[in-house]
């Protein structure tokens, strides 16, 4: 199935999760992580996914980000049924459509902030100069242009997360997924990160889906959804 064939008309929600079930198998045992999930996220939405540990939040986020596949059901993001793409098609699709923000930032320690941000652009046909310019612009958006030459070890946790956000937005994806982006930060840094995400949503029109345990973080979202034992609660 090609990426083009999997592409659906770009009307309706930017994220459309239809009757998704995700089952992990450990030996003969089946663990149902998500069971009959239906979620529609409109374009420009800021959604917070909440729930206790093991409720399936991160799994749902991974399905939406296209880094995992549902056992059954459909996950349509930006008009593409991601479950029907091959591995390499899915990788290419991710690079264009989704920006991922991790809890522990996951910056490459041997690369500077600028090089980390530039990393997704290596997959494009942009020239080195264009890549550098775009990466620097992304760093400016997160307020870290002056730290472009710093390595992750030379940055604070909040700054690292901002670099990670710059890396997530540098390819200009429509959807940002964040897995507990403030989970490893102090309150002040967390506040700054949330403000930045609000700004990205409000000023740049990014659709944000954020997994969080933190009610204060969830309050920043337009919508909150709760998962429990793999089922969405109203």
């Amino acid at each position, binding site marked *: 199935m090609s990426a083009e064939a999997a592409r659906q008309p770009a009307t309706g929600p930017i994220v459309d999760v239809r009757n998704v079930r995700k089952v992990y198998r450990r030996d003969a045992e089946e663990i149902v992580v998500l069971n009959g999930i239906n979620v529609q996220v409109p374009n420009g939405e800021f959604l917070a996914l909440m729930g206790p540990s093991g409720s399936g939040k991160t*799994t749902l986020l*991974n399905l939406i*980000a296209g*880094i*995992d596949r549902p056992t059954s059901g459909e996950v349509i993001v930006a008009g593409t049924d991601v479950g029907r793409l091959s*591995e*390499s098609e899915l*990788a*290419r*699709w*991710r*690079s*264009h459509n989704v920006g*991922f923000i*991790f809890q*522990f930032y*996951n910056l*490459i*320690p*041997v*690369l500077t902030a600028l*090089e980390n941000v530039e*990393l*997704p652009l*290596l*997959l494009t046909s942009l020239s*080195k100069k264009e890549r550098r310019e775009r990466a620097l612009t992304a760093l400016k958006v997160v307020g870290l242009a002056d730290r472009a030459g710093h390595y992750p070890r030379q940055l604070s946790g909040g700054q690292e997360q901002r670099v990670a956000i710059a*890396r997530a937005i540098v*390819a200009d994806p429509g959807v940002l997924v964040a897995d507990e982006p403030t989970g490893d930060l102090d309150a002040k840094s967390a506040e700054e990160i949330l403000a930045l995400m609000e700004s990205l949503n409000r000023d740049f029109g990014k659709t944000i889906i954020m997994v969080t345990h933190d009610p204060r973080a969830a309050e920043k979202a337009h919508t909150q959804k709760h998962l429990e034992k793999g089922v969405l609660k109203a």
Partner: protein
Amino acid sequence: MKFLPYILKHLRRNWVRTGSTILGMAVCIFLFCTLRTVLKAMDDARELGSVTRLVTRHAVSLVYNLPLSYEGQITQVKGVKRVAISSWFGGSLPAKKESQDKSAPDGGQPDFSKFFTNLAVEDEPYFAMHPEFSVPADEMKAFREDLRGCVIGRGLAKQFGWKVGDTFFLESFIPPYRRREGPFEFVVRGIYDADKVREPAADDRVMYFHYKYLYESTGRRVGAGLYVVELEDPKQGATVARAIDGIFENSEAETKSETEAAFRADFLAMIGNLALLLNSIGLAVIFTILLVTANTMSMAVRERRTEIAVLKTLGFTSRQVMGLILAEALTIGALGGGIGLGLSVVIMRVMTRVPAIGGFINGFPNFGPHWSVSGQGLGIALFLGLAAGLMPALAAYRSRITEMLRQV
């Protein structure tokens, strides 16, 4: 190419580990190239050598001399044009006459660090059957008229700074060739040039002197080290060799006659099964480095599981991630191979100037860096890098993002 800075930055991440792996690879390729160069020089030495000449020696070993009476009998064999005695003297400098004084620093013993090939030959037939050596007529005349005279190659003259008229002493380490009155005195009467186009094996670092001098100085007791036999027809080599050996069959000193090339091969085989030994060492080193490099790459990749997951999350395909790891391993191979190759070239050049070792090495007509050996060395380095990186690269290829992120 846009990924190259990324690859190089990763190699610098743990520079001690990367450096030691590259160094290990360099040592491996250095050993391989050096050993292969020695083997190639030996192989070339076997292939070279005139087809118009045979060498007849004692069937048991080169250590034993042949009776002088054989010369006449060999000359009678059909197809033989000329015969000349050639005895390996084994003399060394600077066994000066005055050094027989036991209080002298060297105790009168030969200095093997200045060893070079010196042969006692029957000059007329020997030089007649070796047209690749050219000696000016007046020098040859002077040589023939002086029993202590010798003819040396241009390379040897350059090495020791000798010129016509110079005198030096040699002491042989072979007991029958040593005499009570002390070392042999020689006078340089001629300097020959070796025509390597005519005869690739022609060596200009050899000294020739009169067999008669050796024979008479040692109480007329020594035989002939070997006989060099010139053929009337090179195609008849095998027939003539069989005929010569047939004459002396069942005698006290049976002979073994063979072409010069075969003689060289036999001579080199005296060192033992050197080729097998060197090849075994080379293979053992290569295998060890393969394990070391594979281990290094595995560790490097295992430490970066999260980064691999992040790369895939960002949109790198599994093939691209695999390619990055293989490129990293190849870079280690290329750097190690390049350094090892360079080291080998430098060491080989230096070795030719080292006393004693240099003399032995220079005896090979084709010793030195060769593109085929260098190519093999670099090829092995790249192969080792590729092989070492293959398993971790495949593991990264197959890895699933969610599993790798979960193991953080």
